[in-house]
């Protein structure tokens, strides 16, 4: 358009606001923007769809009895619940937490407080990051090879599998939490004459506590939903059992087993179990997000 106009009129004719960007560039940009919006929808829709079905189907079955009954329904019958599976899950998780939490926190203390920048710290961090990516089912195979081969299926071996699963998460999140503590606090503490032990225990760990606890909750949430490492460690149990060294029922394994059984009662129980699991892990991630949000302020 500016080509046809004469030199004198240029100042009136040239439209700076649209001249540089041709319609093709303009529209292709708009199409790409739209496309990225469609991609977002494509990710969000499955989430809503899953939540919709799990809540809808789960609520139908969920009753007081589901939690208090401590044996699965026999095939073809409807009487039963998963109270014992919740207890079993708690046993396995508690074992895993007891093994991995103190271990992971102290190892992270070394990485962040005493060994920062050393070759060992680098190697440990590298190996932890790789361990995070190791498939959960291999933690189960490991626990099988270490414990189950000798002493049979047990809640304890399931705890070992989940402990191996949680350990790298605990180490990483704790280390990140410790790095957030201001170096001034450490220097002040050491300047007042406290030892490294006192500084760590009385100053650094308490200061990082909210972030550390968040990491621990996330690690627990991750382990709560895992069925793969438990399939051949804590195995499954139709009945009530609190024996740490015998097989126990757990919620994730229950969902897996019942999803393959063609009985309506079991299927309903699987949906109810899915709802309980989902509620637990979503609550954990909402909680952790809230804590992170609060500490950032």
């Amino acid at each position, binding site marked *: 358009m500016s080509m046809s106009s004469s030199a004198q009129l240029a100042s009136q004719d040239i439209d700076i606001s649209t001249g540089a960007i041709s319609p093709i560039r303009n529209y292709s940009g708009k199409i790409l923007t739209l496309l990225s919006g469609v991609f977002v929808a494509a*990710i969000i829709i499955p989430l809503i769809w899953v939540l919709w079905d799990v809540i809808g189907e789960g609520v139908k079955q969920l009753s007081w009895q589901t939690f208090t009954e401590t044996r699965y329904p026999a095939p073809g019958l409807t009487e039963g619940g998963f109270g014992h599976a919740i207890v079993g899950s708690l046993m396995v998780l508690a074992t895993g937490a007891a093994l991995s939490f103190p271990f992971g926190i102290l190892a992270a203390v070394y990485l962040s407080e005493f060994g920062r920048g050393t070759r060992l710290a680098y190697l440990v961090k590298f*190996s932890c990051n790789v361990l995070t990516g190791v498939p959960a089912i291999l933690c189960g195979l490991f626990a099988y090879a270490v414990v189950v081969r000798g002493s049979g299926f047990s809640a304890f071996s399931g705890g070992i599998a989940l402990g191996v699963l949680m350990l790298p998460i605990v180490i990483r999140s704790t280390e990140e939490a410790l790095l957030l503590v201001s170096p001034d606090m450490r220097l002040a503490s050491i300047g007042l004459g406290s030892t490294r032990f006192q500084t760590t225990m009385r100053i650094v760990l308490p200061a990082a506590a909210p972030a550390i606890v968040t990491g621990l909750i996330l690690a627990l949430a991750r382990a709560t939903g895992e069925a793969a490492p438990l399939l051949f460690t804590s195995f499954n149990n139709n009945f009530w059992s609190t024996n740490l060294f015998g097989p126990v029922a757990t919620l994730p394994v229950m969902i897996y087993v019942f999803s393959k059984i063609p009985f309506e009662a079991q299927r309903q129980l699987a949906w109810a179990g899915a709802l309980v699991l989902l509620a637990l892990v979503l609550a954990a991630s909402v909680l952790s997000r809230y804590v992170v949000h609060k500490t950032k302020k």
Partner: protein
Amino acid sequence: MSSADRNYDSLQEDISIERKMDTSRALDVGFVRLTLLLAGFAGIILIWVVLQTTEAALPAIQKFGLGFLFTTRWNPVEDIYGVLPQIYGTLMTSLVALIFAIPLGIGTAIFLTEDFVPKWITTPISFAIELIVAIPSVVLGLWGIFVLIPAVRPVFEAINRSMQWFPLLAGPRPRGTSLLIVALVLSIMICPIIVSITRSTFESLPRSLRDGALALGATRWETIMTVMIPAGLSGIVSSIMLAMGRALGETMVAAMLSGNANRISISLMQPGSTITGLIASQFGEAGRTQVAALMYAGVVLMVMSLLVNVLAEFIIRKFQNLQQAN
């Protein structure tokens, strides 16, 4: 031992500075050594997992050798074991899942970093994407069996009818359980990984890169395509590697939706099997030789996932070093 009535001579014996220092120093040194020991042990666990699994697989490794990787039969009755169909299933489901997830993940990461829509819309979206990561895979598997498979079966049948010439989609009428449905659910699971890492990569790029491109007259999308994506490529690639590692090792979705067929079928519309699905579905009732064979399958899976994860880790570290150098 108040200091007022202390005289000069007794000072050296009385004040037990040395002794106190000793206990508290011993505690201090002990504590540091304990953390050192545990950190070292944490570093060794990965090696322990590898060695212990390999040890348990040893009988099968000696018996079947590398032929295990190329045998297409899994027959506990005759004790013939091979994982070629499972390797095919594992690789294909992961690759197809990535084909879906890469554009979705990068597109969403761009959407969340650019200010296309106000912040009060992007914040809940990024929260929702974080929630997807939290959904237990066994719940997704349950949903896949009872909701997704019935929903997509007509679509699968239509595609299968019209695409008979294409080997990956051919075969008899699909029933639903198939490698393709596994890949679909896997892509839901791995999208958030790509989104979160790609997004933080974009956010960590220097502002001047973007300003420079815009000042030269590039449109917003030209800036993204020609400047942002190339500059953040290593971050994007490592996010893809991590997502692939997750897809390779995902067990419950594969065990519940793949159909666990122990034969090789090229078509993704037909029931197949993955290494993880094989281990999960066979381990419960496995005899001695079969357990060793399943352990061997686990070792194969471990090698695959270690390769992917170590590579991802190196790319991330290299990227971090570059950033620090700049």
